[in-house]
């Protein structure tokens, strides 16, 4: 079938990032030597949810949700170059008339979300916050576990896009099988779950460390 005329592929202008006032300043990387000198209340290892942070999380997720609702306009589109092939155009990026402008939503320097859309597929890449070394390895391990089981999730991509931690690939077939708003709910819920899980893992590691240390030191009393 003939490709749709270019006028139909409207290029939408969406907010590129959060307004400056609402941007969360990224945690400054603290060197290991200063960590032990900090008082518990200023301990950077514990994520203390503040009102401002909770606000920006909601705003960030709402922004992503709105972007996805606008961008998820997928339809079946057989490949233009090769007969009887049907490829996700966002992965190949061969024909520019089939692609929309990619949208980058930044919560701060450390967290961002890239949404690339094409006529039959949409690719969402996330960069998860990693404040210190421990969160770094926890996030890497957890996301690797998820990516390895990508088939079970159907919309997950096996390898994240360069520069990001995890990627989703949604094609028109997924949209036919599942409701669009359900898919978007799933993606946003997924993001929240990842964040929550990494925080919980970090907390459990710290709790274990505290217990191990207490037991050891108790022997001397």
């Amino acid at each position, binding site marked *: 079938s003939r490709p749709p005329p270019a006028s139909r592929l409207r290029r939408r202008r969406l907010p590129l990032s959060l307004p400056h006032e609402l941007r969360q300043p990224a945690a400054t990387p603290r060197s290991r030597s200063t960590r032990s000198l900090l008082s518990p209340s200023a301990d950077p290892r514990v994520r203390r949810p503040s009102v401002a942070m909770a606000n920006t999380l909601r705003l960030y997720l709402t922004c992503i949700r709105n972007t996805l609702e606008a961008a998820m306009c997928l339809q079946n589109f057989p490949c233009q170059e090769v007969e009887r092939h049907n490829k996700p155009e966002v992965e190949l990026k061969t024909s520019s008339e089939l692609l929309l402008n990619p949208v980058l939503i930044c919560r701060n320097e450390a967290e961002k979300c890239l949404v690339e859309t094409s006529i039959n597929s949409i690719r969402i890449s996330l960069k998860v916050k990693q404040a210190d*070394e421990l969160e770094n390895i926890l996030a890497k391990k*957890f996301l690797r576990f998820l990516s390895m089981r990508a088939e079970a999730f159907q919309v997950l991509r096996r390898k994240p896009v360069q520069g990001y931690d995890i990627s989703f690939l949604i094609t028109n077939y997924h949209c036919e099988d599942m409701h669009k708003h359900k898919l978007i709910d799933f993606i946003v819920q997924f993001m929240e779950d990842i964040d929550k*899980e990494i925080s919980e*893992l970090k907390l459990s590691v710290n709790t274990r460390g505290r217990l191990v240390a207490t037991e050891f030191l108790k022997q001397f009393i």
Partner: protein
Amino acid sequence: MILLQSPSRFLLQILKDRVVSGDKGVDIDCHTVEFDDVRYHIQFSMRNPKVMVLSVALPLAPPEAILHDGLPLGAIDAIKAAYGAVVQILDPPKDCFDVTMKINLTKLPTDEEQRNVVLTRIASVREVVLGAPLKLLLRHLASKTVAPNVDKLVALVHRPNESFFLAPQADKVTVVYPMRFQDSIDIVLATSFLQEFVEARRTAALNNAPSCMWSPVPPLELKGVNADALDANAGFVTFVVFPRHVEGRKLDKTVWSLLTFHAYVSYHVKCSEGFMHTRMRRRVESLIQQALDRAKSDAEKLKKLVHGGSFRRLSMKHEGNSNH
């Protein structure tokens, strides 16, 4: 089991079984390896049922830790003091081992409880031999003197080719551990654990415990030690031990705790990694289950829409029958 136990379960089990089985029994010739490269070899033969031969091999000592006759300072004396007539040291030790002892089973006390105490002590041979120089220094601390002929900084073996350092003084002993790990994930986890040690010490309940500090660079006490011994990728932990930690019965426990500190941290780092993996896998499976349930419920809804489940089906058979 949070704390590492001093008597080796392997040795204790073999000794207890041998003593309990009395006249009947089989020949025993067992080798085993414990954490940090300590090897045991225990032998028993029915031809000579009154004796068991136990050999111990210690971890390889780094150049800065000085050994006397292949054993830590004071090891022979410590064995004699701990076991008395029950144990006789064989010289030279068996091939590839550092110390060989003959255990005289007839000299064990007849009372079962006392006998178990002695057997437990024999199973703690590692603490006796490896911990001998540490025990000497701490005993001097308990009596508030400094051991004569001791340098300002003493290096003792606790792991293969690695040592920890002691700076003994009259009123306290400073113990410094360079923490080394091979895996990069271990390093990060260990660093966070060691900082928890510092935090835990600050709580009011543990005010009487030895003070604990962590630093990423070698502390001042280690000035003058050569660079090889100071390469530690998870920082340096410093404990300051006071006489109250080594008086009376606490001495043995303190010796064992300080001797196996690195092993303790390393053991718990590995346990935490295992726990993390289990937890992550469980979480991922629950996420998959949620996703599948959602997809399934969508597919069912779709089926209902397609087949028009809300409409009642007219029975074709009925109509056919009524027509006829």
